[in-house]
């Protein structure tokens, strides 16, 4: 019998954080997360779980790839290999994490992020450029 009866083979998975925006000129912001065993299902789940708006762009970022730079106002040591990183942050607890933009970091990710985006962050995090799964890109509202 299959999974319904006994649910013997529930898949394990990884958490993907979902970022999206409804208009081209908006910044991508955190709208939730999905648990998926792979990138393909993360893409399908992100699209199917978050249908409350007509999204212009949507990304799913594997949480395992996200490095926390500032947590609850405190800077954390974040030494990384050099490369391009995508940074998101928020200054108020009531706000969602918002995508700030890419930076090039060599070693000290926190210093590079502070130089690019300033101080006073409640939360700041980054993921290696290219590690996000593109769910929707520049749809111009054609897809729900």
């Amino acid at each position, binding site marked *: 019998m299959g999974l319904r009866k006994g649910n013997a083979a529930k898949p394990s*998975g990884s958490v993907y954080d979902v970022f999206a925006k409804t208009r081209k000129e908006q910044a991508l912001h955190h709208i939730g997360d999905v648990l998926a065993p792979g990138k393909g299902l993360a893409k399908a789940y992100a699209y199917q779980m978050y249908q409350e708006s007509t999204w212009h762009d949507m990304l799913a970022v594997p949480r395992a790839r996200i490095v926390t730079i500032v947590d609850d106002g405190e800077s954390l040591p974040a030494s990384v290999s050099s490369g391009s990183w995508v940074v998101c942050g928020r200054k108020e607890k009531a706000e969602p994490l918002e995508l700030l933009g890419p930076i090039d970091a060599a070693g000290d990710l926190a210093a590079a992020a502070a130089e690019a985006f300033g101080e006073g962050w409640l939360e700041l995090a980054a993921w290696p450029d290219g590690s996000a799964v593109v769910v929707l890109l520049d749809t111009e509202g054609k897809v729900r």
Partner: protein
Amino acid sequence: MGLEDRERYFRDGDARVLKGEDPREAFGDAYPALRALVVALADNKFVLGRRYGEWACSGPTLEASVSAAAMAGDEMGHARALYPLFREFPDAPKALERETDRDDIHRAAFLGRSLPSWPAFIAANALFDLALSTLIESAVDSAYAPLRHPMKKILQEEAFHHEHATGWMEALAGMPGARAETEERVREIWPEALGWFGPDDDETLARAAAAGIVADDAGALATRFVAAAEQVLEPLGALGLPGPGALDWSGWDPARRRLVP
């Protein structure tokens, strides 16, 4: 020709029949093929949506359940985009609101009952949904203009159904407790999915292709479907599934486009 008509002709390119025009006059002998394909597509979408919806609260994970609900909504939406076309066909059956509305629902036989397990759901998602999409893809530039817009919109949503099927097929293939049943469900649904296109010389698709209602005949559609299905099923390894030539067509029902009585 008024301004509105000219705009419609401009927008619809080389379409032979526009909304509100009688398709019987334009397509002649091919009209029954157009009607048969639209009715079968709409009914199958309607019932597939119902079967998906039955898993909206009982998928193996929260995400799986929500996806089942979303895909059910998509399929019902696809059916509802196609049913208004029935008004253009004087001899079309009643558009479905419930499965009990007609005795002659034009659906695959396996959709007449609930999908008994999650692997069965995924097999239907991977194969039958894909078979319907293969035909839809062939109608995006249809000479019957009213088909064009719904086809494009449906395909955008179906891309995520395909991602769902591909991801789950990979996951189920790696689960010792589910792999054998997944293979079994794939073997069950395979003849019905491939059978959707009919035998290579299927008259309905031959006439529809000749009239430009779809771009491909049954043989070409089946070939494209098999190639796409093999990619989705790749995690299960070689299953030795029969090609169109090896299926038993003795039970083929051309009116309802189904192989299994």
